[in-house]
C-alpha cells in the first residue's frame, strides 16, 4: 500500500456556513497504480490532489503515506516527505519564468541537497530522455505549451518520486501534445511510478489502470480497495 485516505473531510466557512470541498472520502492506492480521477469542474479534483500532494491541509480524517500518518505530521516533516516522494504536474505548467529549462528541472534537486556533479548527471539524463537537450538553455516563454509541459513533467520526475500527481496535465494542450504526454505517463507507470491524474477527458482517463469519479467532493461509486 502506497497511500490510504480514511474518511477525509475538507471544508471552508463561507458566510457562517461550512462548504464542503471534500466529504467522507476514502481511498487506497497501491504501489504501481495509475489512477484517473474524473469529475466536472468544481467537483474537488484539484483539492484532492493537493491534499494527496501534501500541499494543502484537510480538516478531518486520516492520511497514511507508506504507512506513516501524514495527518499527524508537523510542517517540516510534511515538506520533507513531499519533496522526497511526490512529484507534481500542473495544468498551467508553473515553470519559473526566470530560469532556463535546465535550471527549472534542476531546482527540486537543489532543495534535496543533491551534490552538483550528481545534479548534472541527473538533469542531463532527463533532458536526454525527454528529447529536449537542444532546449536546455531556453526560457519557458520561448517554448510551446507541449514543450513546457514536458519540462514540467521532467521537473516532477527529477527527484525520482514514488508518486506522480498530475492535475489536468493536458488541459492546455492540443490533442497531439496530449497523446505524447499520456504515452509518457504510461511508460513511466510501466517503469514503476505510481501516478494519479485528474482529467476531464475520457480518452486520457483510459490510459490509467482504473478511474474514479468525483462529484461535490465525494466518490460517485465506492472505490474498490
Amino acid at each position, binding site marked *: 500500500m502506497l497511500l490510504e485516505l480514511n474518511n477525509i473531510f475538507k471544508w471552508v466557512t463561507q458566510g457562517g456556513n461550512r462548504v464542503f470541498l471534500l466529504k467522507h472520502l476514502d481511498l487506497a492506492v497501491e504501489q504501481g497504480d495509475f489512477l484517473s480521477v474524473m469529475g466536472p469542474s468544481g467537483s474537488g479534483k484539484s483539492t484532492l490532489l493537493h491534499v494527496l500532494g501534501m*500541499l494543502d491541509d484537510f480538516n478531518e480524517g486520516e492520511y497514511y503515506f507508506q504507512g506513516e500518518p501524514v495527518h499527524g505530521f508537523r510542517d517540516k516533516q510534511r515538506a520533507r516527505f513531499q519533496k522526497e516522494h511526490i512529484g507534481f504536474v500542473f495544468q498551467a505548467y508553473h515553470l519559473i519564468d526566470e*530560469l532556463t529549462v535546465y535550471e527549472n528541472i534542476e*531546482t*527540486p534537486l537543489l*532543495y534535496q541537497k543533491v551534490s552538483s556533479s550528481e545534479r548534472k548527471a541527473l538533469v542531463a539524463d532527463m533532458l536526454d530522455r525527454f528529447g529536449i537537450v537542444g532546449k536546455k538553455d531556453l526560457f519557458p516563454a520561448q517554448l510551446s505549451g507541449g514543450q513546457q509541459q514536458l519540462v514540467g513533467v521532467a521537473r516532477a520526475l527529477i527527484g525520482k518520486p514514488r508518486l506522480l500527481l498530475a492535475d489536468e496535465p493536458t488541459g492546455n494542450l492540443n490533442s497531439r501534445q496530449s497523446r505524447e504526454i499520456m504515452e509518457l505517463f504510461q511508460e513511466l507507470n510501466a517503469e514503476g511510478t505510481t501516478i494519479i491524474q485528474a482529467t476531464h477527458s475520457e480518452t486520457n482517463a483510459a490510459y490509467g489502470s482504473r478511474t474514479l469519479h468525483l462529484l461535490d467532493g465525494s466518490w460517485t461509486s465506492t472505490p474498490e480497495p
Partner: protein
Amino acid sequence: MIRNYLKIAWRNLGKNRVFSFINIFGLALGLASFLLISLYVTDELSYDRYNEFADRIYRVDSDIRMGGTDLSLSVTSDPMGETLKKEFPQVEEYVRIYASSGSKLIRHGAEFLQEDRVAHADSTLFKIFTLPVVAGRAEHALDAPNTVVISESAARRYFGDPQAAVGQDLETQDGDGTRYRVTAVFKDIPEQSHTDFDFFFSMDNVQYNWGNFASHNFNTYVLLRDPADAAGFPDKFEVIIEKYLSPLLRQFMNTDLESFRKSGNKIEYSLMPLTDIHLHSNRVSEFRPGGDIQNVYIFSLAALFVLVIACVNFMNLSTARSSGRAREVGIRKTLGSEKSALVGQFLIESILLAALALALAFGLCALALPWFNDISGKSLHLADLLRPGYLLFLLLLPFVVGTLAGLYPAFFLAAFNPIRVLKGHKKTGGAEPRFRSALVVFQFAASMILIIGTLVIYNQLEYIRHAKLGFNKEQVVVVDTGGIAEANREAFKNEVAALSSVSRASFAGYLPVANSSRNSTSFSTDPVSTETNVFNMQIWGTDYDYIPTLGMELLEGRNFSPEYGSDSLAIIINEKAAALMGVDNPVGKKLYSKSPDMEEPEVYTIIGMIRDFNFESLRENVGPLGLRLGRNNWEAAFRVLPGKIEQTLDDIEARYHELAPGMPFQYTFLDESFDQMYRQEQRMGQVALSFAALAILIACLGLFGLVTYVAEQRTKEIGIRKVLGASLGNILALLSRDFLKLVLIAFVIGSPLAWWAMHLWLQDFAYRAPIGIWVFAVTGGAALGIALLTVAFKAFRAALANPVNSLRTE
C-alpha cells in the same frame, strides 16, 4: 543553491528595469548620505587620536568666578604643571603651551610675514605630543633659549626644504628683533587636532611674571601614567588650592578660602581628556574653534533618517513587487522548498541589491564630496573610507541593510500559501496593502518633517539677518592697526578719516561681533555694594566717534564730547543696563565700580542711553553694556560711502604702508564678521535642505514605483472601465485618490511633530521668528503637488493605453 538564487535575482533585475532602478537608486541615495555622514562623524571623532599617548594626555582647565563673572578657561597658571608633577607621582610629564602673545611677524627676505600659528612651548613638548620629527632631533630641541621647532610646511616656506632648515635662524619682530635657531622640523600637525601650530618657540623667551598661581595664561597638558588615575584629580586639585592658592587669597584679598567660596566665588581645576577637547570643550583661549557634539548628533540623525526612508522604500517596493513573485514562491513550495530556504532566497536578493546600491553610493559619494566638504567645512576624502576598520564596516553594510530592508518582504513572500497563489488569487490577505500604505505614510511624514524643518531654519536665518540690530553693520571696514607704532595710530586714523570716501572713523577695539575683545566688570548702583544692587556689565573703552561710526542709536542724553572736560568718568549704557537699574531714563544717575585693590569705588555718571544691540550671537539675549572713553586703538573702524569700497581700501592700505613699512595690511568687513557668527546655523540649514530634498526624492521614487505597480495590477480594471465609458479624468482620479489620501494622512501626522521639533530648536534663540501657518501650507502643498505629479505621470500612461490590449493579455 546560492548560485541559483543569485541567477534569479540578477534576471529579475533585468526584467523589471524601472523597479530595479528605483530600488537601487533610492537605496544608493540613502547609503551615499550615510557614507558622507560617517566620514564626517569619524573625522570629528578622530581628533587628536594621532597622539600615541592620546588616552593618557589631559589638559588642565580652570573655572573661575569672581565678582559675578564666570570664566571657563582652557588655560591655567604657569606653576600648575610643575607642581602637579612634583606633588603627584601619577603625573609622568607635563608641557605648557603659551599662545597668549598672539601672532608673530617673521622675516622672509626683505619683508615680514605674519604668522598666526605660533606658540611658545616647554622642552617637554615632544615627550607628550608625539609629532614625528622629519629633520633635526626632538631630544633637547627646545631646551635652550632662542630655539624654535617648525612644521614641515613652514620649513618649506622659509627655507625651501626641511633638511635645509635645521641650524638656520628665524628673525622675529619681538622687541627689536629676536633670532631663533631652528633645531627640529616636525611633520605638519594633522587637520584633526585641536592645535594647528607651525612654530613652537622656546618657553625661555617668554617675558612673564613667573610663578604666579593667580594668573591663568598657559595651556597645560599632563601625561598620566595610567588614564584610570584621572578620577582622583578633583581631590588632588583641592590639595593644590589649599596649599598654594589659600595663602594668596589671604595675602591679596584679605579672605580665606571658605569665605571666598561663601560669597559666591570659586576657583576650580579639572582635567579635560585630550580627545574630548574638539567636540566637548568650548572654553576661553582654545587654540582653534572646535566642533560641536550636538552637530555630530544632528548630522547623524539626519543621515539615519534618510537611510531609514530609503530602506523603507526598498521594503515597500519589494513587497509591492512580491505579488509578481508569488507564483514563483508557490512553485518552489510545491517543489519542496522549505520556508527558511525561501526567506534565505529573498534575503540574498535583497543583499545583492543592497550591494549594488552600495557600489552606486560610492559613485554618488565621490560626486557629492566636494560639495559636502564645502558645506561642512571639512576636507574629507573618499579614500578615507578604505581604512581597515571602515572596510569591514562597508562589507557588512549591505548585509545589514539588505537584511533589514529584505526581512519583511522575505517573510511576507515566504508565507504565501502555494495553492492559493497558483490558483491565481492575487491578493493574499488584506494586511499587505495596508502595510504598504503605512510605509508610504511614514516616508511622506518624514519628508514633510524635514521640509518643515528646513523652512523654519531658513526663515529664522533670514529673520536674524534682517533683524533690527541696533547698529549699522554695512559699509564698515575694520583695520588692524597693531602693526603701526603706538604713537602713529592716531595720525593714521585721522588721515583715513580725511579721505573723501570715508564718512566716519573711530578706534574700535571692541566690536559687536564674535571674536572681538570683551571686558566685563561688576557695578553697583550705590557706593556700598550689596548682593542686591550689584550687576555684572560689559564695559568697553571707546572714543568720541564710536557711536556715530557704528551707527548706534542714542535714545536719551548725549554722546561723549571733547567739549565736556569731565567725560573721562562718563558712561553711556544700553537699555538692558537701565532695565537692570530699574529706571526708564538713567541719564544723570551714578554707577560705582570697585576692584579688590581699590580703597574707594570709581564713580561713573551716566550721560546717555543707546538702543540695545546684539554683541553676542542672536541666540543670546542682549546683556547689559556700558561704553566709556578709553584707549583701545589696536583696531580702527571706518564707515565708507557706498560704491567706494575698492578704491578706499587701496587708499587706506597706501597710508598703512607709509606708517608701517613691511607690515601686513589686515582688514575685515563688519557685516562679514557678523555673518560669520551664523555660519553654524547656515551650515545646519544647508544640511537640512539637502537631506529634505533627498528624502523627498526618495519618497517620490517610492511613490512612483508603487503607482507603477498599482497601475499594472489594475490594467484589466482600467480596461474594463474604459470600455464602459470612463474618461481620462475618471481614471486619473481613480488611481490618484488613494495615494493623495496617504499624503494627507502623512501631513496630519508629520506637521505637529515637525512643529514640536522646530519649536524646541528655536528655544535656543533669544530672537525667534514665529513658525507661521504658511510653512505648513507650503509643505503640504508641495508634498501634495509632487505626489500628484508622480502619480499623474504614471496614471496617464495607464489611462491612455488601449483597453483591448490589456483585456486580451489577461
